[in-house]
């Protein structure tokens, strides 16, 4: 009896290892693309969206990108930099993967970059830390989403355009939170009533909400990623502030990954992003339609970035006819950005970061009663990040 149980346990323990050892079914000439992303823990929804968007682009092209057969190898970093680094070492050094993508969080990317960039090409579908945009820019590093500051800058710019004179701004007390508010203030010219930093693990915002009501600013700007934003948005509405003081944020806190959890509480909030569900270009229509058909939900900003990352890589694969071994040639092909982005016009600046239009969106109910973003204006046209001048790439 005891032995049986032991052997069952041993067999169960061995199962995951079996999965890893399974031989690849894809064609021998398929180009391997390594996707390191966050698929467990509180950030899992973001990684899943990037992965799903990427896979959709591959599926829409019949298992190919740029006419070249590809095999996407997915691994979960669990939002731990050391995990990400170990996966990158395995992929780059042992499995000789030469194109990587997928990392959600900047701290993971900063741990992975030193491993990947000397030997392979990295296309970021989300994280855009300033370290890799300025002096630390790299010929093998491309960011197809944004530089971390961009969306915050856009809201600052828009609020200035709208003549908002007194703003209450709030972010978690960690490097990305402080960078976010710095980015916002770079373009916001009104008075900052209070710059409040909250705990990264904060659950209850009642104290801050009472302070906000008391200070009665003309607008509130928040950068609270993931669950923090959900807590805040729910409590903002419950405190009766929604509809009284407009709430602004970057697109991260107001997209399809958050709407199902906050429902009506998000209605009427304003946010900035380089993409929106309703952008009228043909590439975006195809993306939104096929995504919804494939996964049964609406795509988020993150999914659009995964989809664009795949098509960007596809454009370079087409140009090099699937040869990813010549780093310089592959990078040159990527830099042309010769693909139909779901956000419309797109090109890279000298530091391999986007020069792009950033839109303002408002959370509304659409014709079918779903909660979605509607594009209401443009914060920036052809916007480039603040670090590009420090980068010595051509």
């Amino acid at each position, binding site marked *: 009896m005891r032995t049986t149980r032991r052997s069952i346990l041993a067999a169960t323990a061995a199962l995951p290892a079996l999965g890893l050892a399974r031989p690849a079914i894809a064609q021998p000439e398929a180009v391997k693309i390594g996707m390191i992303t966050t*698929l*467990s*823990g*509180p950030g*899992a*929804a973001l*990684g*899943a969206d990037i992965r799903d968007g990427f896979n959709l682009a591959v599926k829409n092209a019949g298992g190919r990108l740029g006419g070249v057969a590809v095999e996407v190898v997915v691994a979960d970093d669990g939002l731990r930099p050391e995990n990400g680094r170990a996966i990158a070492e395995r992929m780059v050094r042992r499995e000789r993967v030469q194109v990587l993508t997928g990392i959600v969080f900047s701290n993971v990317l900063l741990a992975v970059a030193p491993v990947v960039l000397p030997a392979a090409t990295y296309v970021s579908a989300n994280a855009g830390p300033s370290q890799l945009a300025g002096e630390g820019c790299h010929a093998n590093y491309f960011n197809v989403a944004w530089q971390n500051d961009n969306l915050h800058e856009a809201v600052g710019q828009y609020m200035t355009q709208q003549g908002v004179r007194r703003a209450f701004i709030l972010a978690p*007390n960690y490097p990305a939170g402080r960078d976010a508010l710095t980015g916002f203030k770079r373009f916001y010219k009104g008075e*900052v009533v*209070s*710059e*409040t*930093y*909250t*705990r990264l*693990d904060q*659950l*209850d915002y*009642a*104290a*801050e909400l*009472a*302070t906000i009501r*008391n200070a009665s600013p003309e607008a509130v700007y928040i950068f609270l990623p*993931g*669950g*923090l934003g*959900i*807590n805040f948005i*729910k*409590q903002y509405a*419950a*405190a*009766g502030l929604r509809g009284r003081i407009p709430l602004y944020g970057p697109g991260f806190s107001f997209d399809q*990954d*958050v709407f*199902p*959890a*906050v*429902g009506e509480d998000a209605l009427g909030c304003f946010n900035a992003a380089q993409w929106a569900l309703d952008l009228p270009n043909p590439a975006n229509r195809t993306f939104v339609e096929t995504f919804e058909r494939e996964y049964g939900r609406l795509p988020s900003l993150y999914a659009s970035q995964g989809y664009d990352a795949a098509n960007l890589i596809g454009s370079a694969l087409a140009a090099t006819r699937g040869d990813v071994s010549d780093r310089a040639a592959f990078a040159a092909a990527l830099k042309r950005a010769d693909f139909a982005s779901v956000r419309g016009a797109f090109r890279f600046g000298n530091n391999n970061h986007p020069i792009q239009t950033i839109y303002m969106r408002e959370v509304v109910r659409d014709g079918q009663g779903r909660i979605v973003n509607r594009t209401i204006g443009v914060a920036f046209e052809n916007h480039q990040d603040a670090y590009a001048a420090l980068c010595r790439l051509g």
Partner: protein
Amino acid sequence: MDPSLLLEQTLNGLTLGVMLFLLAAGLTLIFGVMDVINLAHGSLYMAGAFASAAVTARTGSFAAGVLAGIAVGAAFALVLELALIRRLYARAHLDQVLATFAVILIANETVKILFGPQPIFAAPPPALAGSVELLPGVPYPAYRLVIIAVGLLAALFLWWLIGRTRLGMLIRAGTTHRCMVQALGVNIEVLFAFVFAIGGALAGLAGAMAGPILAVQVGMGEQILILAFVVVVIGGLGSVRGAFLAALLVGLTDTMSRALLPSLMRDLLPPAAADQVAANLGSVAVYLLMAVVLAVRPRGLFPAHG
């Protein structure tokens, strides 16, 4: 600060405090009676929140959701006790930490498989979604008042159960003189299972009540568990009375430091520095409180073990 704002912030502190109490009460009971460190207590809370949100969405009744949260919390705790914890009573705390940490990972992945990685929706019932005018000009969300009431009722129930019933007598005896209780012929296995279920029910209740104001998502338990442990340590290991006082103390300290520090610092320092200092002080206020309490009373406010 004007009195109405002070009243509002006090209520905010109490809301956070009673939520922490619901979680910490079970944690401290389980530690006090069984000497088990249950890291998976946050998973019971998460299970309660998901069960409650799912049942509320299905039936449209918030009360049914809350009952489901309590039931799932208690049932999950019972299964955990029978299948795993029972084998760990004699083991060292580190073994218990390791095993219950594994339960966290398993529970998180299971919830992700069942509900997907995205946070799910939970809202207060429509009747409680509005606000109540406590004093003229001080609207306060009705649902938060309900949380405070439910927390106080739970505290009252525990006080009655532990202080006024035969079962409570056994629990108290089990905390201080475990061997003697066993020698007297009390079925300690049933008692332990029962205490675990009570702890699970309270965690489930906390999860169900938290859903409408917090994100219902994978990993929500670990976030609040850290504060719950701080409460248990401040209150004195094993003491429900201590946990109650400590929870209110922690809730009020956390809220008040965040409410008062920013304007206080802006009076003393230039704005940029003031915001940063206030944020950093606010982040550590609860831990400072813990350090001070432990310096004065190394075993917490009301240590249960003599």
